[in-house]
């Protein structure tokens, strides 16, 4: 017989991965980081008639240890950059980031000495939402996109490959 080539992850591993991905995508607890007017739209998305809680994105926790999705809603000034980085570092893996609004994505209209031009060079961003500010539907759409992204993740395969020394 001899050694057989490693052909794929196998049934058990993929099913376990699907289950984990399902759990993670159905319960993305947000960390609301509203620094400007986008924060108002984010609150609106959490409240009645838009209700982000339908997707399990409930219990907005202001402690970064307990959150999964950092919703960065608003302008990031240069003084805010280290704070944002620190908050992101304090979050537990796996973690995701939604950059909400033109300011978070690119700096927006604030092309000034005090504003950081987009948060993507401070923390890795998963989903960008354009708009100034984007409507709550925009945030919901971004959340659904993020859930799709989580579904495509391979949480166990990475660890198996690392354990095999790959």
């Amino acid at each position: 017989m001899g050694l057989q080539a490693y052909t794929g992850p196998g049934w058990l591993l993929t099913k376990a991965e699907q289950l984990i991905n399902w759990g993670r995508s159905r319960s993305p607890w947000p960390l609301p980081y509203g620094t400007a007017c986008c924060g108002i739209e984010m609150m609106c998305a959490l409240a009645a008639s838009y209700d982000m809680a339908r997707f399990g994105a409930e219990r907005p926790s202001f402690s970064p240890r307990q959150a999964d999705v950092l919703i960065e809603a608003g302008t990031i000034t240069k003084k805010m950059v280290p704070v944002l980085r620190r908050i992101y570092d304090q979050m537990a893996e796996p973690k995701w980031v939604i950059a909400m609004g033109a300011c978070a994505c690119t700096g927006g209209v604030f092309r000034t000495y005090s504003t950081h031009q987009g948060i993507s060079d401070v923390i890795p961003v998963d989903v960008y939402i354009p708009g100034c500010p984007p409507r709550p539907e925009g945030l919901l759409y971004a959340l659904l996109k993020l859930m799709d992204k989580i579904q495509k993740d391979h949480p166990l395969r990475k660890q198996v490959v690392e354990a095999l020394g790959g």
Partner: protein
Amino acid sequence: MDNWVIALIKVVFIWTWTLLIATLMTWVERRGSAMMQDRLGPNRAGPFGLFQPLADGIKLFTKEDIIPEKAHKILFSLGPILFALPAFSAYAVIPFGDKLIVNGKEIILQVADVNVGFLYVVALGAMAVYGIVLGGWGSNNKYSILGGLRSTAQLISYEVPFGLSLLAVVLVYGTFSLREISLVQQGTFLGFLPNWGIFKQPLGFILFIVTAYAEANRVPFDLPEAESEIVAGYHTEYGSMRLGLYLFGEYVNMYTLAALMVTLYFGAWHLPYIDMSKFLGPVSYGIASFLVFFLKTAFFLWLFVWVRWTVPRFRYDQVMGLGWKALIPLALVNLFITALCIQLTV
């Protein structure tokens, strides 16, 4: 040998049942709060969002387990365990039904009929505060310490009226055993009322329910984790399943306290004016008593959610004022009146 097997089945049953109800309660709480805020609440995971607790559990279990660098490692890991363990074991002495007769063998629907059942529940309820204080202290975080200390201050203001209101119940029934208290609540009181504890202890019940909310750290007494004041209170630094144990233990505590309310004040498994054991077979009577008991408990579980979205949080000094200036004198008056009535009638 048979008794061992029966005891084991009862233990396993009540464990899984308690955990199942606590899990479902997280869903009820989220859907209930959504209902009161004109939202829908989680409805995407499974039918009506019923699998939402499962998704949360999977997520919490597979999340990175962080112990902060400056935290006290042992106390930090001990906190959630000390909180959840008393919560999980407190249900042992509370009945969940009357009795089941299978093959001529009588099975009491209670894990252990301890003759000091009361003291056991009160002692374990007070133990939970160690989990909060140690977790808050071990986190080495200012918000956590504030949350933990608030919890101790809250404990000394509600635990005395809690104990005094239970003591009045003991005076009425003359026993500490929760099964015996349940059994004597059959029949009618003064000829027209159900023979339930609430009609003998109306003031005692109000004192008990107020202090029970404080015991479970529920709104309006959720000072240890007041999220608008001190981030997340004692569990600010906790993530992953350690946080899960804290959140879950709270719901298990709620279930235990709701069952205690039913046992002491709402006639346990007895229906008002109807004696189920007269016209039901031995097995169906056992199941019916279990269901009646559970339905009553479910109402009080719902009351926890109801109150949460009705009453705003008390301020720190208001809780102390309420405990020391209102609840303790009232509890003493209640105890005195109860003792006087019993002395005059016996």
